[in-house]
């Protein structure tokens, strides 16, 4: 790197531009390339996991068994969950982190570029391993994405070992990604960028990365215990040998609950960047946002047993986990209040990122409220394992995590591609997604409260109409995502030239570099006022 690179000019960027051909992507250590790889990988997994959801909705279109055998249905529910959680949502946020964190803190790249490359390329291997199980003789994992023992040990298909190794690889990838994010944020900030000056997306990712480091090893531990129970004769989860299947649920949810915040905190950060931009006002209550995020992260470690109120825990335990869970509503409420206050009396415009962000706030709050209902232990006895739970977590994950990712993509696409996306098509994508998503998941509240159990390929006749509505909404939401693919490809290939700062209300270092962002940025750190 002998040439002096002016980080505000384009011409010199080419002096050290990307390599040509396929090997550019295999060998790249550039944070922007790796971010792009993560985002495309996540989109592929989103379509694959989505196609599994389409199989589920097609089977549930009418009562009775029509399209797939129950055994295959179980594999579809399992793989849909696993692929969406580990393949679609988490890599999308890692992709956004790779692209945006160095640009937001004025760093030239991630702190550990080679490890960055490795942590991405582990993912295709992991998911190839996982998906290949569908073609094996005994079928793929069929025990639900929560893989409770003994379903996943004593009664598991042979392919469970592939599943275990796939989880190991994903875990290693996430941990390395998290270490990289922390090392970047703590060491490579431009001079003058103090912690409390960092954009909230960086803050939420810093906290998310710590959550990942704390709980992904526990997930690795629990699948290792499964592996030992299955192949090496231990009895962690086998009562005959002195173990306890309920232990599995405790260890799994010790990972699982922080995991749900891993999937939402970065979206909180992105929305906290987008809403001020399109309200043309600074974010209301920045400091309280940081503390609220940290509180949510802390609380996520002491609420895990609310997933297992019905396994038989002592009354004191139920009360503790119930109140601790309800407590999470406080910092979350602070966030929603801050977003609403940011919009209050702002000069609002509703470009596509803002539409997704506003829908995020409203619909995520609905998911939060159904979460409060589920948190009440005596009520949960009724709701447990019904479609009400499915409605709840899809309301926090689809308009939460996924809409957050859509909003981020539209918000930063001009920076990534150098072109403006098609605003009309973007809005169409939003409205079709919005209507499709609500049509799919809102009726699930009703069938759930009426007692329809989850993960079953057939149902009582009384649930027919609502399920048909859900399925129609599901097909609509699924098909709409091809429009998203079209919009992104169209934007990459051309469109109106994007200025360095395409949104007039936007704040942040990423808008100080030209669009598209040069291959190398901030080789000399910028000055922060």
């Amino acid at each position: 790197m002998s040439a002096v690179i002016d980080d505000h000019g384009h011409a010199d960027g080419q002096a050290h531009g990307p390599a040509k051909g396929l090997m550019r992507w295999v060998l790249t250590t550039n944070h922007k390339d790796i971010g792009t790889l993560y985002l495309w990988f996540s989109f592929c997994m989103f379509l694959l996991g989505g196609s599994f959801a389409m199989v589920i909705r097609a089977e549930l279109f009418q009562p009775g068994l029509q399209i797939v055998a129950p055994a295959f249905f179980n594999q579809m529910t399992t793989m849909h969950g696993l692929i969406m959680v580990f393949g679609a949502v988490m890599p999308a946020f890692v992709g956004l982190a790779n692209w945006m964190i160095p640009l937001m803190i004025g760093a030239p790249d991630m702190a550990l570029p080679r490890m960055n490359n490795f942590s991405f390329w582990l993912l295709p291997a992991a998911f190839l391993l996982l998906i290949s199980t569908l073609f094996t003789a005994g079928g793929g994992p069929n025990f639900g994405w929560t893989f409770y023992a003994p379903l996943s040990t004593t009664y598991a298909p042979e392919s469970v070992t592939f599943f275990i190794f796939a989880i190991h690889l994903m875990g290693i990838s996430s941990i390395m990604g998290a270490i990289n994010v922390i090392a970047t944020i703590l060491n490579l900030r431009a001079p003058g960028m103090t912690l409390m000056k960092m954009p909230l997306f960086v803050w939420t990712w810093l906290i998310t990365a710590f959550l990942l480091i704390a709980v992904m090893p526990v997930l690795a531990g629990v699948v290792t215990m499964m592996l030992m129970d299955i192949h090496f004769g231990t009895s962690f989860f086998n009562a005959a040998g002195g173990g306890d299947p309920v232990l599995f649920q405790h260890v799994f949810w010790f990972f699982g609950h922080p995991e749900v915040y891993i999937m939402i905190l970065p979206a909180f950060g992105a929305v906290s960047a987008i809403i001020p931009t399109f309200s043309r006002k600074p974010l209301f209550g920045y400091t309280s946002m940081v503390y609220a995020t940290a509180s949510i992260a802390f609380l996520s470690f002491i609420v895990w047993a609310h997933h297992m109120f019905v396994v038989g825990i002592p009354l004191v335990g139920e009360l503790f986990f119930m109140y601790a869970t309800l407590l999470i509503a406080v910092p979350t409420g602070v966030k929603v209040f801050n977003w609403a206050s940011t919009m209050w009396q702002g000069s609002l415009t509703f470009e596509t990122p803002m539409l997704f962000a506003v829908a995020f706030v409203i619909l995520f709050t609905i998911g939060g409220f159904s979460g409060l209902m589920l948190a009440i232990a005596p009520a949960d006895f009724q709701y447990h394992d019904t479609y009400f739970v499915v409605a709840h977590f899809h309301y926090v994950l689809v308009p939460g995590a996924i809409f957050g990712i859509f909003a981020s993509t539209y918000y930063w696409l001009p920076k990534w591609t150098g072109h403006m996306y098609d605003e009309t098509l973007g809005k169409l994508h939003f409205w079709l997604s919005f209507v499709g998503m609500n049509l799919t998941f809102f009726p699930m509240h009703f069938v759930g409260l009426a007692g329809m159990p989850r993960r079953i390929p057939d149902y009582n006749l009384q649930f027919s109409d609502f399920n048909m509505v859900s399925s129609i909404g599901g097909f609509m939401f699924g098909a709409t995502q091809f429009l998203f693919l079209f919009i992104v490809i169209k934007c990459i290939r051309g469109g109106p030239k994007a200025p360095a700062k395409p949104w007039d209300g936007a704040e942040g270092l990423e808008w100080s570099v030209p669009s598209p962002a040069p291959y190398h940025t901030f080789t000399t750190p910028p000055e922060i006022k």
Partner: protein
Amino acid sequence: MNNSKPIKRLVLRLSLMVVVMFAFGFALVPIYDVMCRAFGINGKTAGQYEGEQVVDPSRQVKVQFLSTNAIDMVWEFYPKGDQLVVNPGSVNEMVFVAYNPTDHPMSAQAVPSISPAEAAQYFHKTECFCFTQQVLQPGERIEMPMRFIVDRAMPKDVKHLTLAYTLFDITARHPPVAAIAGKDADQPSR
């Protein structure tokens, strides 16, 4: 620029955190066990009870007995009586019967559970076949006494206890021959 000292130190610390959390996952196993015994979670009962108690004649508790065979377990296994009405503090006995109808020796392990779970810590067993593993020859039938004391300190609102045993076939895990050779390979942790 990318391998400066502070980054290396940070990565080392973070990696250490990963190792610690991986170990913590495994540490949850004994922690869970201790918590279960301390608070009677899942109705887990403690090991052999050595203490003695004075009988409380003013109070009676009904204790019911259940026996279940785990999947694929072919033994006959049942208590000789359905229930006992006992005074807290007194030593009581219930005999369980096990019979191996197959033509090969088998070993088995019984796992107890108390309902309601909060009473588990007040249910003391002074002698139980669940403390050891059972080996039965083909066609062999045994009677196994189980002696217990219901603690005087048990909350007054508990008037009815259920002791349920599930019998697991552990022949594959502990072949009967080996179990006979090491006869006192019992598991006091039960």
